[in-house]
């Protein structure tokens, strides 16, 4: 069986299956939902950073845009949620298109500019001058479409699609092209890869993933303020989870989410006052001692990480 399908069976099926079954065993469904959301975000970061080498420090911009795209369709046009989800994803992709010039920038500049872009979108959305459209600082309250079970199911479907996408990237020429661009864009260009086109596609895929995640998050949470869906914690966590697990693999970000987000929630319930301190130290230790993630550790021991 080709590697792609082997990986798909070995990873995608168990993960999605497990997340589908867990709500029957564990009552805090919102927690499980958040796990799914972070898996999506970590994989999204994986696509644009792990494979393509651009660190999206403002990744939450797409997440929030998706959330607002979804919500505004529901609030203003009374769209059914599934259709509004498509709109949310489209909104994020549009923002991605708008921001493609940023891809010309190198390394740190790109990250800072991306962060500035996300903050700029937050400013626009929460401004009272636009409140007739975006409801400004009052936040969104979606009435009448609250269906947590359906939303969770849809989130799982999006997760399956995302994981399949990453599996594809891991096992295809396109994915290899992206990694080549990450390592050395000039050589990649000379080897015949259409650098600009490939990275824009990766960028838009990454935006779409975050947009859909944001839309389904808005659907599940249904009452939120702009700061909630544009909070920088989403970007930071997604990046750290992807990094910890191991960029450019399928399993890496999933491991990162399960382990680190699991620790986060456990600390939260046991020793909250040192929360920020423990997490900050963890991030620092991670970068200093395991900069290529857990996957690199496993690879060093001879295990091939999908």
């Amino acid at each position: 069986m080709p590697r792609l399908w082997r990986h798909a069976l070995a990873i995608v099926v168990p993960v999605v299956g497990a997340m589908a079954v867990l709500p029957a065993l564990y009552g805090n469904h919102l927690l499980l939902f958040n796990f799914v959301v972070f898996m999506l975000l970590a994989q999204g970061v994986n696509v644009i950073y792990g494979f393509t080498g651009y660190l999206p420090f403002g990744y939450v911009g797409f997440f929030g845009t998706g959330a607002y795209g979804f919500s505004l369709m529901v609030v203003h046009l009374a769209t059914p949620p599934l259709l509004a989800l498509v709109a949310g994803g489209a909104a994020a992709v549009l923002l991605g298109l708008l921001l493609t010039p940023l891809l010309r920038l190198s390394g740190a500049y790109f990250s800072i500019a991306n962060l500035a872009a996300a903050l700029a979108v937050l400013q626009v959305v929460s401004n009272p001058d636009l409140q007739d459209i975006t409801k400004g600082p009052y936040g969104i309250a979606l009435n009448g479409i609250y269906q947590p079970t359906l939303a969770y199911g849809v989130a799982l479907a999006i997760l399956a699609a995302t994981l399949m996408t990453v599996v594809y990237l891991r096992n295809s020429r396109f994915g290899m092209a992206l990694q080549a661009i990450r390592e050395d864009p000039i050589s990649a260009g000379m080897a015949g890869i259409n650098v600009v086109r490939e990275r824009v596609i990766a960028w838009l895929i990454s935006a779409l993933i975050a947009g859909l995640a944001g839309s389904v998050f808005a659907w599940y949470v249904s009452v939120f303020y702009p700061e909630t869906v544009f909070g920088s914690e989403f970007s930071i966590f997604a990046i750290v989870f992807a990094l910890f697990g191991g960029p450019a693999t399928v399993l890496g970000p999933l491991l990162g989410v399960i382990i680190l987000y699991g620790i986060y929630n456990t600390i939260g319930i046991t020793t909250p006052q040192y929360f920020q301190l423990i997490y900050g130290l963890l991030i620092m230790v991670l970068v200093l001692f395991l900069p290529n993630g857990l996957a690199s550790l496993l690879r060093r021991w001879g295990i091939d990480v999908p």
Partner: protein
Amino acid sequence: MFQKLVCGLGLASIVALCGAAQAAEAPKEIKFGTLYASAGPFAVISMPVHYGLKLWAEQANAEGGVFVKAFNKKIPVKLVAYDDQSNPATAATLYDQLITQDKVDILITDSGSVLTAPAVPIARNHKMLLIDQTGTGANFFTADNPYIALMSDPVSTIWPKPLADFITHDGPALGIKRVALLYSTNDFTTTQANAVRKFITEAKAGIDIVYDQGVETKTSNYTVLINNIRATNPDAVIELGYDGNDIAFLRNLQDSGTKFKMVFCIYPGLETNVLEKNVGGEGLQYVYTYVPSSEIAYQASFGMNLAQYKAAWDKKYTDGKVEFGFNSVAGYTTGLVLEKALSVADSLDQLALRNAIASLSGNLRTLDGTFAIDEMGAQIGEITPLGQLALDKDKHIKFVTVYPHDVATGKAIYPAP
């Protein structure tokens, strides 16, 4: 006769069994679930509320617990509290945790609208009554959702009424015609600004709003804004923001040498100690603000009054890290309302509790004033009157209530010298 005996015995045994069953059903503790923020932007308003609630719980347990009418006995309270670090997404999962894993009997929110918002749909979905401590977002209270009740702050659409009424009723006589309105663009203060604007324009008392601007909540420098306001020559300046905004505004006012005839800010009333430490007594003199329940000795028909509560607070919380003020009273008030509700509710069923709380409306007088909620659960009582700050002989801040006249303790000094 033998039949009567049998019937009598039968009845007696049934009654005994029922009594025994009821006593066996009574839980050994009532679980109160809540969240607090120990760090992040909302910690300043969250910790005092949490400390107030904790104090109430300890006191209640010291007396053997709260009297629960449903089981006709006193049951101790267990407070289960998690830290959400001012992060709404974390708060959401923790609220869900409290409901589904800890299976709390009563769900209480964290402080402020941003951290209350995530709980509203979760509580509604699980059919749990949400005890909203200080979250005044108008979005939360809708006619089709009975699972919410606001404990302490009056809802922001009516909170500024005493201020607006002072300007429209007393203002013209004092010479107030031009008003400048500066507000921070977040739910809480923008709603208050809208309310002020509405009350002033509807009153048709000849008051003009000559400056009306919103600024981002993160604004920390008001020097240019103050200059622009001054250019419009206002008779009264209303600045609606969070404590950081008020501190920056009042300090910049002092430092720039500008003097306005009347200045109103919210947080000199709600977090007086913090403001006094940062702005100083001189900078707060003559400033108008809301008079919080932590400054008015309301007649409390239930629970401790202000003096007793402050003494208990000072005794319990000696490290001075959490400030005593309006928010600390709010946390204690939550406990009081719940205690009273449990003593009149027929069962621990969530809607029964809601009805019990609604029945207290207008009748419960605590150190926070008169508790009153409307049919959507929004607080319409516990209104804070308008006051002006003055320096007492020790150069500390004290409040002079100036409006409404029936509760006034002094006259407004206008214009500020």
